[in-house]
């Protein structure tokens, strides 16, 4: 029964991902006093792309065609580590957050290769800038997760969630605040959101992720877009489960799961509003200021780790 709920969690993260992107876009439009596209638009877009044909540059090799599939597969595999409705996940095991980070890195690696395979300067530029950002974002990502893991004395995400469930929300520890700050900054960098990257633009001056996928079309582009949405959804779900999991079902019952789902949607909405606010208020950082941004994230996450020795566990 637990496994069935875990599969349900994974499906929720995968299938609900385009809706998350749609809602964030709608909130941003509301802030900008526009009507904006419907929240179901990303689904229509993915469906439309699946019906179109795949355009392949003549210089491309199998890596170009293969990269979106690997990106999608790693995103799907990554959601198997995130608990949503109950404190357990399909592949939850000791040391699983290293798997999570490196699976996302695998997807990014192949996407960069696919970008270079297009043989254009856009792909090279996007891949080169993305290489810089993902390099600098890995350390704070892992350090933030390590800090939280040390505090809870568990090395697996479900274990951390169970430990947090037993604590009081008012017992805020400095470690958790610092880890949340650095992880939030990393989420912005890894998913290509403002202020690191603009997900809605296709100008070469401002694009990093969009530059890498410029050559893709049809089903490949659909897979890439879906994979980015899944990544965003999974990371938001990860933040919720690590820092605010109260409400997760501790016993497997229909009412418990339904309540957990409603609470999760409420927390997710709060995070989405926050994300949309940040994206609308903050200007995009100049490319060479992003290392400063991620440097602050690294320093804060390193502080979080150091603080685990100061705060009584």
């Amino acid at each position, binding site marked *: 029964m637990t496994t069935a709920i875990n599969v349900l969690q994974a499906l929720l993260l995968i299938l609900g991902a385009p809706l998350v992107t749609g809602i964030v876009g709608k909130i941003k439009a509301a802030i900008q006093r526009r009507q904006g596209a419907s929240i179901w638009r990303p689904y229509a877009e993915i469906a439309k792309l699946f019906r179109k044909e795949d355009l392949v540059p003549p210089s491309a090799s199998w890596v170009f065609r293969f990269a979106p599939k690997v990106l999608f597969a790693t995103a799907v595999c990554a959601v198997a580590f995130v608990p949503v409705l109950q404190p357990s996940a399909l592949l939850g095991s000791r040391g699983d957050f290293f798997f999570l980070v490196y699976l996302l890195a695998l997807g990014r690696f192949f996407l960069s290769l696919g970008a270079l395979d297009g043989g254009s300067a856009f792909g090279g530029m996007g891949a080169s800038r993305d290489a810089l950002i993902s390099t600098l974002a890995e350390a704070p990502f892992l350090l933030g997760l390590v800090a939280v893991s040390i505090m809870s004395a568990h090395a697996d995400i479900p274990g951390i969630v169970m430990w947090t469930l037993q604590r009081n929300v*008012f*017992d*805020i*520890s*400095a470690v958790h*605040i610092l880890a949340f*700050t650095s992880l939030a900054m990393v989420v912005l960098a890894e998913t290509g959101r403002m202020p690191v990257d603009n997900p809605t633009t296709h100008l070469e001056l401002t694009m990093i992720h969009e530059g890498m996928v410029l050559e893709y079309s049809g089903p490949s582009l659909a897979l890439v877009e879906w994979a980015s949405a899944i990544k965003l959804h999974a990371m938001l779900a990860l933040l919720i489960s690590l820092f605010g999991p109260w409400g997760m079902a501790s016993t497997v019952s229909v009412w418990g799961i339904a309540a957990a789902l409603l609470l999760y949607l409420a927390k997710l909405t709060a995070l989405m509003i926050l994300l949309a606010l940040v994206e609308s208020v903050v200007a995009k950082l100049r490319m060479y200021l992003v290392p*400063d*941004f991620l*440097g*602050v994230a*690294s*320093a*804060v996450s*390193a*502080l979080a780790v*150091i603080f685990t020795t*100061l705060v009584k566990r």
Partner: protein
Amino acid sequence: MGLVAIATAKFLGSFSVFLFLTVLLMVVARRISTSVLLFSLQSAIITAEVFAMGVREKLAAAYVVGALVLLIKVIAIPYAFFRLVDRLKSPRDVKASTTPTQSVFIAGAMIYLSYAAVHSFGQTVHVPEDALAAAVALILTGSFLMVSRKKALMQMLGLLVLENGIFLAALITTFGMPLVIEIGIFFDILVGLLLMGIFTFRIRDTFDHLDVSKLRRLRG
């Protein structure tokens, strides 16, 4: 009434965390107005701390002191700063001499140092360690701001943060100083700020800039 007691107890236990956050944010802030806002936030947290202590220790003087801090440090001084920035018409940049990453690391080292220092005499004096470490960290941050920011306005702000730290330290160790001393300190600060404000205008009029690193005639 029980809820208020619980809330104050929780707050007293965890407010140092928020002070550390303001310390970190202050060292990476790039604009003067952001730093002033953070200072105001810091003073607000300290005001809340004063009130919470008043509730817990049932001291009437604490409410007076809290009101004074609220009036002067949360409202009046930041307002004066904003007015000053407007009238000086100088660039709003903080002109830091360290990059944000370096600043955060230095801030981290300062916080660690303050914890280490407090831990070493925490055995003799019965004080909450977190809060005292926060106070020492504020003192160090104020000094760091004065040293690493080249704008004259930031020197003033650094001094104010320093004074925040001293005030907090005194508050924790003595559970509220006698009222007279508090008021005396406030007046000292006010007069000092007034003088600094006047001098800032004089500096700007004489040198046409407010970059402290260029003022090098203090030699024999």
